[in-house]
């Protein structure tokens, strides 16, 4: 079976994932809108998923892809809970800017 890594090389995927991961991190740091921050986290998770798939191919092993399923489940679960919290906040504050969440400090 033909393998894409023979042509592209695993390192490029690692770089791509790392960059995408960094973009996710950037998003989390850059934005204060909670929803967009969630999205950034999803980008991070996707970067990891991509990496896992790349490694799965690299090792020609299904486990990596299976792991991606778990990762997706986790992502879904997290988003569900995260959005629930967000909704609760929105009910109280009428916005979702996390800079408003500074009551707890010191």
């Amino acid at each position, binding site marked *: 079976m033909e393998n894409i890594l023979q042509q592209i090389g*695993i390192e490029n995927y*690692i770089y791509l*994932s790392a960059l995408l*991961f960094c973009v*996710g*991190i950037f998003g*989390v740091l850059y934005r204060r809108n*909670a929803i967009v*921050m*969630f999205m950034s*986290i999803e980008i*991070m*998770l996707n*970067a*990891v998923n991509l*990496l*896992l798939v*790349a*490694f*799965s191919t*690299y*090792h020609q*092993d299904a*486990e*990596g892809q*299976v*792991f991606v399923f*778990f*990762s997706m489940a*986790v992502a879904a*679960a*997290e988003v569900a*809970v*995260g959005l*629930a*919290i*967000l909704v*609760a*906040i929105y*009910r*109280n*504050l009428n916005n979702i800017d*996390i800079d408003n*969440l500074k*009551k*707890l*400090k*010191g």
Partner: protein
Amino acid sequence: MNTLIAIAGLGIICLIAEIFNLRKAIVPVTIIGLLAVLGLNVAEYNELTQLAPGSKRAFYNNMVVSDFYGVAFSGLFIVLTIFLVALSPDFHKERKAKLSDFVAIKLFLLAGAIAMVSFGNLAMFFLGIEVLSIALYVLAASEPKNIKSNEAGMKYFLMGAFASGILLFGIALIYGATGSFDTSAIFDVAITGNEPEWFFIGIVMLTVGLLFKIAAVPFHFWAPDVYEGSPALTTATMSTLAKIAAMAAFFKLMRSMNYQVPGSYITIISIVAILSMTIGNLTALKQTNVKRMLAFSGISHAGFMLMVFFNPPAMGDILFYYAAAYAIAGIAAFAVVLYVCGNKGNEEIHNFNGLGKNNPLMAAVLTCALLSMGGIPILSGFFAKFFLFNEVLHTGHIAIVIVAVINSIISIGYYFKLILAMYTQDATGEKQPVPIMYGAVAVISILINIAIGLYPSVLLDLL
């Protein structure tokens, strides 16, 4: 393995009980169930003792492994959960309808925690930590009308998810380097020494993710805010069960995979340990909110516990002892905090004024719990620190022991702030009766604390 299944089943039973309007039975059944699970756990332990020393029992393609370490910690988690569940009905008496949810979530959380210490595969580990985390996100935010609770939940969730991302990245890299998620397979690769360097990067990422979970400096910022904002019982859960579960998992991971790490890794761990101890303790000095103070205290204890990495093969039992001592003292302290601050709406120290006169028993329990955390003999916290220091000295790291000692001194400063409030200030409010469960949990846990102080070998010899 059986314990894991039983606990998940128990959680579902809780949910079902609510459907069948058996609300009153939930807590007793859960506690009895947990005791039964504890029995299962003991049985598991006994089976292990039949085997050759050092061997482990693997289940389901090495997904779940039961060894002394995992079983011992599972037992500790179960005991803690029993206490936490026992505290629930009084704590949630305003929101009885949701009691089943709370109890079920705690049980699932326990399942996650057990998965974290008895995994044989990173997938189990990852799922365990996520179950634990998500359960805690929910619990932290479980007072939707309370803006503080919202904030706590949001902060915890955002940062937790972020940390999960990094942790996952680490797992991916380890997988990339070794081609497997199975810890023993990873160990086999790692021991050959010719794995790619991503492996170490993965280990570091994993470490960072777990350092976040145990709230070590500089990944600790969430802890005080979240502890303060969460409902007190959740704080109790976080500071006891969640913290030691993360620590235990961390230790297990590192012990099972971290063969031949670069020397600078241990330097990082010691720097983090020192920073955690110092910043945690120093900042705790200025706190006026008890939960917040305990959060910083927890940060410093995380620092102490990190010292086990100086000699992982020898320190499993010591970590277990330390975790048990810390968590049980924490439960006792929180039982009193729940009692005192239950209907006050905040956890400021002045709420504790005059407790020594109003309720000497609870005051004594809290005093003992704090002294235990501060490391005063005969309470188990002292022995924990003593064993830890002893082993660390054994590895020759005298400097960090000195730092730890200085930190123990600093910690007395804030533990005593609370004690002073209890014994020297006059009470502001009138005396309130102690809910029987609070009292029982407080007294039993402090008795356990003293007992394991007097017979440390009971725990030390478990593994």
